[in-house]
């Protein structure tokens, strides 16, 4: 993808949830674009819809109306199976609580997305080692998540997110469970991925210090985009 072209285009997206007999609107007529290589922070109070918007962009939830085009692919028209395949190739995920599989080692956790590809065992190993090298955890590849600190676990999660070399990384409160030092390291790592590997990062955060690292900050309030 060419630099500075739109990699994410969101048009008139609405989303609501049903709570009993009530329909609760979460996002209302959201439209914006994200350029390739951008580091965007989505901010807003709890319940403003930022995580929902992130889920829609990542293809793990469905819009009620509107369209989301990512890298030229309109993901809102894809079936569940097609979306699963699309996610495996195009998006890397970083969660607040790392979401590593406890029974797998760091190496095996990072290898997970590659198991869905046609890569050979040797090729997978090369990719995993490279990813762990980038996050500076090559020496901990045989450790299980419980044997790693929070910051290290999040770095493993980032390695898992980048191992398939996706264009986009989505991060939901990636520093929300970390101390200040570890949070700083994670944010630096994410900045490094944008600067040196041309990744596009969309990050949901409450933390203004985390948002400072982003190139662009978007605010959501009560399901509406507000520019400050």
């Amino acid at each position, binding site marked *: 993808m060419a630099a500075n072209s739109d990699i994410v285009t969101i048009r008139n997206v609405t989303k609501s949830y049903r709570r009993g007999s009530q329909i609760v609107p979460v996002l209302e007529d959201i439209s914006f674009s994200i350029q390739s290589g951008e580091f965007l922070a989505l901010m807003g109070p709890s319940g403003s819809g930022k995580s*929902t918007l992130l*889920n829609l962009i*990542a293809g*793990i*939830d469905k819009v009620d109306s509107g369209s989301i085009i990512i890298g030229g692919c309109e993901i809102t028209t894809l079936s569940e*199976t097609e979306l*699963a*395949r699309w*996610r*495996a*190739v195009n998006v890397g*995920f970083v*969660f*607040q*609580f790392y*979401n590593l*599989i*406890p*029974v*797998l080692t760091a190496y*095996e956790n990072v290898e*997970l*997305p590659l*198991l*869905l590809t046609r890569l050979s065992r040797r090729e997978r190993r090369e990719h995993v080692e490279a990813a762990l090298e980038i996050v500076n955890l090559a020496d901990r590849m045989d450790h299980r998540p419980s044997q790693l600190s929070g910051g290290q676990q999040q770095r493993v999660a980032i390695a*898992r997110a980048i191992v398939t070399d996706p264009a986009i990384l989505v991060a939901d409160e990636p520093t929300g*469970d970390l101390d200040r030092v570890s949070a700083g390291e994670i944010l630096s790592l994410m900045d490094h991925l944008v600067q040196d590997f041309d990744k596009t990062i969309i990050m949901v955060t409450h933390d203004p210090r985390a948002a400072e690292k982003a190139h662009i900050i978007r605010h959501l309030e009560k399901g509406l985009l507000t520019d400050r």
Partner: protein
Amino acid sequence: MFMLKYILRNAFRHKLRALLTVTGVAIAILAFGLLRTLVGLWYLGVESSSSTRLVARNAISLVFSLPISYKERIRQIPGVTKAGAMNWFGGIYISEKNFFPNFAIEPQAFLDLYPEFLLSPEEQKGFLLDRQGAVVGQKLANTHGWKLGDRVILKGTIFPGQWEFVIRGIYRGAQRSTDETQFFFNWDYLNESLRRTIPRRADQAGIYIVGVANPEKAAEVAQAIDASFKNSLAETMTETEKAFQLSFVAMTEAIMIAIKIVSYVVIVIIMVVAANTMAMTARERISEYATLKTLGFQWHHIAAAVFGESLFIAILGGIAGIFGTFPAALFIEKELSQFFPTFQVTTTTTVLQLSAAILVGATASIFPTWRAATIRIAVGLRRIG
């Protein structure tokens, strides 16, 4: 390969829970196996009955006897090779808790008609020559420490008095399923005593064991025997040994049905327990399954993980239960030999046990598998933290 590794590691993630579930399944499968063996044992007499033997009894009831004069008439019927009188003696050795089946039989007919009871030529000769001689099964002899030449006194219940016997033979079964807990003695000894003490009960046979030359013509021979005694004072009812044994089993069929039901109930109970465990396990891992789905894994990958784990635990418990059944059966056979002539676990029982374990694992995983496979990613991820 990954899925296998994931299933194995998940299975032992909560070691205590896994151990308790495996133990629960093992005990249930063991109990199921023992109960099925017990049911099979009930039909052992039927299964080990010979196709070359018929049983002729009084047509009114087994309680009524047949005149000893019938023996020669039965022998003369075409197709009959041998006939021998037999009486249920019902004697007690020391006390009632030492129960074992004991019969008065005609020694030569017995030796000819029951080739499955193995005796040495010396033992056979000793039995034939000694009017007070008795032949006992190896297990019965072991239980009471009897040896050849030992004198044994049975207290008569149907035939009053103290009856003294000399052990002249200790038989072994030709097959493992042959009953080695029986006691046989000379019918003449009983009859001669009765002639002296209760003459009206003498010269009566409880049943006749009849040997037939051709098993395929057993029905015709049986009909011929019954026809011979039609309109006599004691009409006969002749049937194959198998049918005769089945008539005894039928009397206790309600107990057998109850035991069969209990064996299935045991499986249903462990199925519910295993389902609860798997539901709990899947509920705890919902966010993990949602994460895997986020990474691109599809519903069938998740279903395989949950289903595989449930099946693995159930089969592990099943195998432990099956391996436990054999020593348990041996223990029962040894310690309760007076009640169970044999307690052999058959291949059919083992296959049933393994099938039951697989059924437990598969059934227990249905709901958790469906729930884990169909969970919406956004909902599953919200469970985090």
